[in-house]
């Protein structure tokens, strides 16, 4: 099958929906001739014109609100927030308006809105351009939250999100844009709320999201050589969350690690770990562990930046420790 990048996979999904559904349009800063800060929308302006690939002023709150209004009145806008850190400026419209309008209006309205935004560290862009705040939006009833970790997932989840009919926030990861994967040319959907077992294993379950999916897979490879069989699960969507797949795995392995790049404290990993610790209580042969970002802003210095968030070796180390844990100690 074809191999394309994560960036191209997203672009294909956008392109498909722009062709397929005239209600769909994109808006955001520098998404036109510039092709977006990470090149995702390159070429779409030329194909679909300035009305449907709409460059905006630097007005995150305003453009998100415009998208809410357009969604409420029959369109299917897709907002590009150039860095997910800038969502801090648009949250009233996402959290107080988009997420709640349907409920506040007794079900007599809907807001089919997609917000795409790149998150994560690793580019040296420092504290204000490197955050991973997906837990925030996962806390809000009325929103769905998607975090594709592969090119294949990115295309299928993006199409599903655009067709979903609810406000959906898609956290892309900057370091993934260049990663390649096999992706069908045809459109396809990945249902929101279906986890993916990225690698099967029997000794321990690693629930990883975003960039940590790749790192967990690399760690699993290393650990396999050490005789540890790791099952890697990618929830793909935080809301809805596929509890069943995760719990089934933990009931099988008896051990669980939850890992993400976001700051560990009050990150979404706490939600997943709490669910496992509660609902797989009897199966657990060791405490559920979390491995998330350190409680520090992301520094610019490359070495420090790397240390601020979990790397492959950190996953390896903690899994080894967890495998050495015995219930009787």
């Amino acid at each position, binding site marked *: 099958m074809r191999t394309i990048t994560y960036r191209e996979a997203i672009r294909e999904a956008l392109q498909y929906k722009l062709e397929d559904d005239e209600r769909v349009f994109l808006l955001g800063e520098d998404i036109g001739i510039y092709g977006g800060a990470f090149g995702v929308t390159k070429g779409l302006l030329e194909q679909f014109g300035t009305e449907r690939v709409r460059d905006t002023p630097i007005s995150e709150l305003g453009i998100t609100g415009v998208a809410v209004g357009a969604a*409420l009145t029959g369109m299917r806008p897709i907002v590009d927030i150039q860095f997910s850190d800038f969502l801090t400026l648009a949250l*009233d419209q996402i959290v107080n308006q988009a997420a709640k309008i349907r409920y506040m*209006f007794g*079900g007599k309205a809907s807001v089919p809105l997609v917000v795409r935004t790149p998150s994560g560290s690793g580019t040296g862009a420092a504290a204000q351009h490197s955050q991973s705040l997906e837990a925030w939006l996962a806390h809000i009833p009325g929103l769905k939250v998607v975090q594709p970790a592969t090119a294949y997932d990115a295309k299928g989840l993006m199409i599903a999100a655009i067709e979903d009919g609810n406000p959906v926030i898609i956290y892309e990861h900057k370091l993934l844009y260049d990663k390649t994967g096999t992706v069908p040319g045809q459109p396809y959907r990945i249902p929101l709320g279906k986890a993916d077992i990225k690698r099967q294993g029997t000794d321990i379950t690693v629930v990883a999201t975003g960039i940590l999916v790749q790192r967990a897979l690399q760690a699993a490879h290393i650990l396999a050589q050490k005789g540890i069989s790791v099952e890697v699960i990618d929830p793909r969507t935080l809301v809805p969350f596929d509890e069943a797949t995760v719990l089934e795995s933990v009931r099988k392995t008896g051990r669980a690690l939850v890992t993400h790049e976001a700051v560990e404290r009050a990150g979404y990993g706490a939600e997943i770990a709490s669910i496992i610790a509660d609902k797989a209580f009897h199966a657990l042969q060791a405490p559920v562990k979390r491995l998330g970002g350190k409680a520090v802003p992301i520094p610019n210095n490359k070495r420090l930046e790397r240390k601020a968030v979990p790397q492959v070796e950190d996953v390896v180390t903690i899994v080894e420790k967890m495998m050495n844990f015995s219930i009787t100690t």
Partner: protein
Amino acid sequence: MNEKKIRTSEHPVTKEEALRSVSSRSSNVHIDKSEAISLYKTMLRIRYFELAVEKALENGEFHGTTHLYNGQEAVAVGVCSELRTGDMITSTHRGHGHSIAMGASVRKMMAEIYGKATGYSKGKGGSMHIADVAGGNLGSNGIVGGGIPIAVGAALSAQMQRKEHVTICFFGDGATNEGSFHESLNLASIWNVPVVFVCENNKYGMSSSIDVMTNITDLSKRADAYGISGITIDGNDVLQVKQTARQAIEHARFGGGPTLIEAKTYRYKGHSRSDKQVYRSEREVAAYKKRDPIELFERSLLEGNILDESNIVTMKDIVKEEINDAVTFARESEEPTECELYRDVYA
């Protein structure tokens, strides 16, 4: 639309002056009798609705707070009387007047305020979240300035869908200091979408006088920062409001882009239930009440022989009856069932 009418409303003009100006300013407004009566009746409906809400609140008949529109009726009614089917509005926390002016059912509104299953939002929204999206009311809003970009988005929809619908965006004086105001007016301007911004300057944002919270005399001047037209009008003169709205709406509908209308008016009641109104004098309130928008219009209807005193009494009775019926309906309606708690979170 380019000339600015500057009016200082520091000291309300006398009734006599007000009336003269009503008739003179309205001289070029041609409305027939039935339309005039409809304007008058809608203003009455708002007034009596709000008085009923106030009473219910005092009696503890519903849960939550409310922001009453008494005194500002001419703005909602004048503007919305110029709308066609398919046109839309966004409203604010002080939204009952806008809803009624859009022709909402007062039964469903009152039921919503009472938190009942028969309300517009099945009792889940309450006073601050009355909406009727199908009917063109995209919703009142608990966030000051929250509705402004939403209105621009609705207007953008109309533009992209090649429909000739106009969106009216209502907000208060206080909202003009929110970033959303700025970003939204700029977006509306550069995309030339069919939206009319209606700022109801009732002198206060909660306890804060707009004269202290900005350093300009007329908020309509802010239009210049976006290259759109701005105009300041007497928001208590329903015909002047109507006339100005007509021009701005027509302008927007046929590709002329947005306008910012500042309608100077006054709110009679406290900001919300908790307001002790220590920031303004009773004298000030009394002075403004002398230019009551309903009384002003009533007088010109009488003088123009469009209505006589007995017509007015009858109409008031009819409207009061309608509102009483709405209260009874709200009182007697069922509460939402518990499963409603979980419904409508997602489509």
